[in-house]
């Protein structure tokens, strides 16, 4: 009898469930844009990114003389004063990306950045703790970049690894390991609570600023061994400062916003 009830409930679920009024893809995207515009402006990263961007714009003229705040930020490493600008800029971009291929590519590029930062820290002789933290950020970023259904594709994994290829052997191995087995997603066990962003779990102690940075990992990975480009400018002005190319993301992890828009339009058109 209980079974009958269950059967009836299933049938009911099917009959009524199928009657939910669908939200059209275009309305869905429009609402998302409306919501996320507000959300990213008031998010943890957004406020910072906006402020820093204003700074970057105001400083554009001065940038020539001073070398560019944004440019410096893009090259910053964990612990550098401008490191937060770099991460906030990444967050601002990622926040407004619709799910899908474009988002995946951006996330993979961000993970590659983290690998590059880790390698650079190691090359510059940073301490073990700093490198561990950077590895933790890399794991976070790898988990973020992995699709819901499973691990990274081989191509994506090798692309991330490649950015850490010039690290000293020991760190390179650790980077490979982090990319291959980033560890349990949220496991970071401890701290649930009001929780901060779960951090690296694995060996890693929770970062100094656990709640901090959304998505791409802790705010404590930085730097790039490449001449990264002022990401804020690209985000806000929609200009690509990066050399051409067919990918939305340059090898150094910077974003070509023209390309991003193109891909975004393309995926919406579907």
């Amino acid at each position, binding site marked *: 009898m209980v079974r009958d*009830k269950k059967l*009836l409930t299933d*049938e*009911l*679920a*099917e*009959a*009524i*469930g*199928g*009657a*939910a*009024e*669908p*939200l059209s893809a275009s*309305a*869905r995207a*429009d*609402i*998302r844009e*409306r*919501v*996320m515009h*507000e*959300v*990213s402006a*008031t*998010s*943890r*990263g*957004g406020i910072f990114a906006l402020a820093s961007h204003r700074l970057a714009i105001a400083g554009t003229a001065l940038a020539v003389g001073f070398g560019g705040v944004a440019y410096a930020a893009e090259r910053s490493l964990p612990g550098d004063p401008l490191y937060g600008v770099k991460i906030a800029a990444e*967050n*601002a971009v*990622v*926040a*407004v*990306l*619709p*799910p899908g291929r474009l988002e995946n590519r951006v996330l993979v590029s961000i993970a590659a950045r983290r690998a590059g930062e880790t390698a650079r820290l190691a090359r510059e002789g940073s301490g073990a703790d700093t490198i561990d933290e950077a590895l933790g950020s890399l794991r976070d970023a790898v988990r973020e970049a992995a699709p*819901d259904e499973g691990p990274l594709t081989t191509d994506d994994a090798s692309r991330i690894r490649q950015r850490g290829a010039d690290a000293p052997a020991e760190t390179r191995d650790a980077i490979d390991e982090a990319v291959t087995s980033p560890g349990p*997603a*949220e496991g970071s066990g401890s701290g*649930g*609570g*009001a*929780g*901060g*962003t*779960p951090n690296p779990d694995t060996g890693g102690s929770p970062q100094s600023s656990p*709640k*901090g940075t*959304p*998505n791409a990992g802790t705010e404590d990975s930085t730097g790039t061994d490449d001449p990264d480009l002022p990401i804020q400018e690209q985000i806000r002005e929609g200009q690509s400062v990066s050399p051409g190319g067919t990918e939305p993301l340059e090898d150094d992890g910077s974003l070509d916003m023209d390309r991003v828009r193109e891909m975004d339009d393309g995926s919406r058109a579907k």
Partner: protein
Amino acid sequence: MTERRLARTVRRACNRDARAFGRLYDEYADRVYAFVRSRTDSAQDAEDITATVFLKAWEAIGNYDDRGLPFAAWLFRIARNAVVDEYRRKAHRPVPVDEPIETGEVAESTDVAVIARADAERVRAVVRMLTEEQASVIAMRFWWDMSIKDTAEALNKNENAIKALQHRAVRTLARLLQEGEDDGA
């Protein structure tokens, strides 16, 4: 989205992580819209209210405690309140109140059969005629896939009350659909 991933995403959104919140939007937009649309007259209104729901959720998510109300129940409450606010604002439609409806234990299989053979558009039209609580239960149970327990938490009722509400909602739904059939609709 798996439960683990959802929990992680919610935690991040609580920390004002915009991307995580975007994920939640992607996960729940359809459900919020389906419910809101069932309580509004036009698709445009429903879209506006859906946007409002997520903006309100973003405003409040910093105070959300994942050890309390399940996230879906929490979000549903916001959606429900937004709908009620809209009713009040427009004041062109009274806020439906629960009216006593016969609760006799009539064969549910008959009801299910009536509902199953109705087309989606007709079912939606009839859901709009349900009381606010009944429609909420229908939305949560069948469109949001929420358990009786979570539904009870969202509506601040006990589980038996939800079962009774669901029963009444389904009965009413079937009765109205049947009447439509009889009228040749």
